[in-house]
């Protein structure tokens, strides 16, 4: 109960900041729109049956792009305001920090999905099948985005201390999230095809999400504490750099 309350407090703090500035919502939302338009331009000429095979790929590529963008920003704010150390020193469970960031990322991703899916439906006639089963669609988007955010939040936290390392986040994120994205692809295809085993696949995705969130939560503390104090190789690099920049003082005679 306490964990949930702390999570809610931290998440509400982030969401309130977001509500005041609308930075992430507007940039990520507009980026989603841009990606959808790019997909429309790239795949405009596809026949209806080919469209139906291409749409799952478009949906989850878009989530992957928007997710990487959002995740770099979610922790950037802590870095810019130098509040990461304060957050670590605060009397809250570390798990609550992870869950709060996860909730914020998930909220942004779902908001972008709410732009993307109708957008795809507008531009590609084959995607209008999505409207037939709104419940399955919502479950699918939540489960897919949750799994993606569970992995992403962990590594975004680890890379939070360094600016300009955003390429590394994508390098880590895309190979590691392929299992959940592959499941999401299959489920989306089954949703479009009206496959009878759709809910079966969704249940498997839910199980996978539980595993990913559990592993992410278990590793979060180790990664985040590492973010606060540099490891031995980095300290040694700094020491070497300092030594070669300034020559050592002459020994006393």
């Amino acid at each position, binding site marked *: 109960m306490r964990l949930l309350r702390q999570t809610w407090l931290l998440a509400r703090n982030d969401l309130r900041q977001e509500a005041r500035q609308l930075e992430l919502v507007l940039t990520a939302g507009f980026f989603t729109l841009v990606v959808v338009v790019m997909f429309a331009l790239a795949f405009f000429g596809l026949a209806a049956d080919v469209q139906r095979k291409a749409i799952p790929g478009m949906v989850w590529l878009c989530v992957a792009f928007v997710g990487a963008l959002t995740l770099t920003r979610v922790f950037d704010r802590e870095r810019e305001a130098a509040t990461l150390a304060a957050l670590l020193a605060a009397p809250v469970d570390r798990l609550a920090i992870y869950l709060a960031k996860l909730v914020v990322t998930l909220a942004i991703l779902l908001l972008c999905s709410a732009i993307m899916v109708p957008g795809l439906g507008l531009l590609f006639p084959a995607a209008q099948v999505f409207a037939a089963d709104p419940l399955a669609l919502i479950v699918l988007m939540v489960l897919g985005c949750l799994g993606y955010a569970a*992995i992403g939040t*962990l*590594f975004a936290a*680890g*890379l939070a*201390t*360094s600016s300009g*390392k955003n390429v*590394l986040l994508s*390098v*880590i994120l*895309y*190979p*590691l999230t*392929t*299992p*959940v994205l*592959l*499941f999401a*692809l*299959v489920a989306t*295809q089954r949703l479009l095809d009206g496959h009878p085993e759709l809910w079966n*696949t969704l249940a498997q995705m839910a199980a*996978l999400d539980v*595993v990913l969130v559990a*592993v992410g939560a278990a*590793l979060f503390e*180790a*990664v985040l*504490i*590492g*973010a606060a*104090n*540099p*490891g*031995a*190789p*980095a*300290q*040694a690099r700094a*020491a*070497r750099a*300092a*030594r070669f920049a300034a020559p050592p003082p002459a020994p006393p005679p």
Partner: protein
Amino acid sequence: MSKYVPYVLLAGAAALFPYCVQRVFLHTPIEAEMGTAQKIFYFHVPLAWICMLFAVVCGIAAGIQLSKRSERAEAVAVAAGEMTVLAGLGVLITGPIWGDATWGTPWTGDARQVSTALLWLVFVAYLLVRRYGPSNSERIAAALAIFGAIDVPIIYYAVKIWKTTHPQTGVVGSLPDSMWNTLWVCLLALMMLSVAFVWIRAGQERTASALDRAWIAAESPLPKPA
């Protein structure tokens, strides 16, 4: 005493490799369906097993590194991660050559192919993060390795259900004993080589971190003698 182990292994591998090649090409029957192209199997399969083995070793060592802050485990994790990438590269080169000869196409999108490629990508990312990451990169990389090791079975299963929309491809059927025995000999040779490499690399990594600690100690201000 243990510092001679990798060199003994290397010597053993050096002696065994010519025998392997001789055995594969001269003393093992030619497979009926695939012909001589199947000979690559004796190096492809052991490399794939070594790749998987060291991926798991890397994940476990990274877990010990994070939970016990063990430098020895960290060195083993780095060495195993590099071995995974190296063996994976071997698998990804030999696999398409074999596939091209047997299936007529180098890349069929078979579940094992795709999952090996994804595993390889994860461990390349591991090495990239370790090399170019921020100041806390060894912890991020360790978390990545643990996730990678957990992902191995999940990736395989995910690719398998993803493949249901694609045609199934044939896989190697049952083999006679003479072929299996040749495979074991090749596995032994490659395994000795890879364990020796990992051993030497882990030792080198420990020396490097000892040197790092020496630098930190040399630069930190010492209390002035009274």
